């Protein structure tokens, strides 16, 4: 018998709970959530291992090695470990584990993966300029009512809507 995944949570309830998680993050540490920062830490660590001299000459990388316990022992990295564990637990409980490619009805899995990689590349690049991604800059920034949070949020969704038409084939029939 095929395992039928449970339905998703009510979005407003999920949003409320997510808001509480964010509030808890503020309450404990004074800063919100983030995700792209972890990928940045991993990139910096990798580059640091591969080419230590190169890292020393580049302010973007070297900042992370100059003080503190290094790029991997930080708040965001442990937060992301928690995210992975929490999501795995949730997926397992709801019967959603399993290898799969999500895609629109009109494209092949190969096409989807190529675009997924390009999207990831752009998101990684953009998150550096934005000083955080949808969670770190937009959501967290909005919760503390910072101008940067609102600007980044509007820019993300604004540009998304502007280009959505041209890439509609990826997602809709």
């Amino acid at each position, binding site marked *: 018998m095929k395992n039928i995944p449970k339905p*998703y*949570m009510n*979005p*407003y309830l*999920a*949003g*409320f709970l*997510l808001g*509480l998680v964010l*509030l*808890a993050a*503020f*309450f*404990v*540490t*004074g800063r*919100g*959530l983030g995700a792209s920062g972890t*990928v940045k830490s991993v*990139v910096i660590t990798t580059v640091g291992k591969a080419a230590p001299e190169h890292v020393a000459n580049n302010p*973007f990388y070297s900042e992370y090695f100059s003080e503190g316990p290094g790029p991997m022992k930080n*708040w*965001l990295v442990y937060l992301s470990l*928690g*995210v992975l564990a*929490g999501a795995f*637990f*949730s997926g397992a409980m709801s019967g959603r*584990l*399993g290898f799969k490619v*999500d*895609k629109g009805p009109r494209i092949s899995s190969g096409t989807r993966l190529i675009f*997924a*990689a390009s*999207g*990831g*590349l752009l998101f*990684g690049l*953009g*998150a*550096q*300029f*934005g*000083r955080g*991604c*949808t*969670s*770190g800059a937009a*959501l967290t920034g909005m919760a*503390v*009512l910072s101008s*940067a949070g609102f600007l980044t949020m509007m820019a*993300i*969704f604004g*540009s998304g*809507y502007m*280009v959505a038409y041209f*890439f509609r084939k*990826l*997602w809709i029939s």
Partner: protein
Amino acid sequence: MAPLIPQGFVNPDLNLFFAFVIGLGFGYVLEQAGFSSSRKLAGVFYGYDFVVLRVFFTAAITAMSGLLIFSYLGWIDDRLLYINPTYLWSAIIGGVIMGVGFILGGFCPGTSMVAAVIGKIDAMVFVAGMFIGIFIFGEFYEVFEPLYMGSYLGGIFVFDSLGMSREWFAMMLIAVALMAFVVTQYIEDQINKVSFEEKSSRPAYWTPALIIIGLGVLMIMLPSQPRSNWNETSAQKLLTNVVNGNQLVDADEVAYSLVNGKDRPLRLVDVRSPEEFAQFSLPGAVNIPIGQILENQSEAILSDKTNKVVLYSNATTLSSEAWLVATRAGIEDLYVLDGGLNGFIQTVFLEKPADPAHNMNLAYQNRFREKARQYFLSGQSAASPKTLSVPVIQTVGEKPKAKGGC
């Protein structure tokens, strides 16, 4: 009280443990909300599924309202919260690039992690793409730096940018969110051709909507006095101090304290720029540039209870501004050097001694100023011979370290 870690209530070593626990909640909620599906996420751009907007907006107004309420109740000191600094063009261009990335990739970083861990191959590829994107940024950092570091506006707030009060902005955001929920539901139903029966079987959310509107109205009605800081000094009290000039300390007193050391301990705080401070400063002074006057490290120095804390600048404009801001923020017993550095030099070094024959007080004053001149010029002083530094020129105190964000 909170935030716990910056206030020192929780051992910083537990920081990473808390990070993991909060991450658990974050990951669980994202996955439960359906954010592990790129099809669902991309739906917000094509109108067939607005789950992203619902979750995102609800979370933002929940956390925002929570922070406002905590701050009213004095449960959280919102001066210790990290406020994302605004680098105008970097934020906008970054957002635009991320928006395109969202359409192409169907994920954002957090959601891609959530999806990758439950086996979504497209998400794993997306994460790999992010590595490359960040690597490109790192490699071409020098090219990107002018944009990345440019148009810096500081940790500004959106309600200030819009010229509104924080409470009104919060209320407006709640209203916009509720309207967006209604409108997007309508659009979604049109696009998905939802039947009337299905629509009418859905919950109407009247209760939560009314609760949150009530909350917004309550926030506006609350008196704004206890906001942000419960030990702020009232404007009235400030005015009284300013009018009476209670905060002023004259040059003789400062000179006396410098000469005689321990009798009347003064803590001199130089509020000018680090460059000016390095060029010339009073002995033993600490440099806190006015821009950093509200930072935690500064507060520790300014609220020193054992010494009389005296602020100075070249004249009195900058130091008075610093005095006002710090006093308003709740730091008591601060003083300003009357006449500033210029006045100090004028009084101690340049003023011609008045004819002492008519006035005994003047005679004493002259004698004292002569002694002070001796002290500063020669470094010879009977009272504290150990601080034999050269004239008045610089003694660099420990500079408070300003720590930036991520």
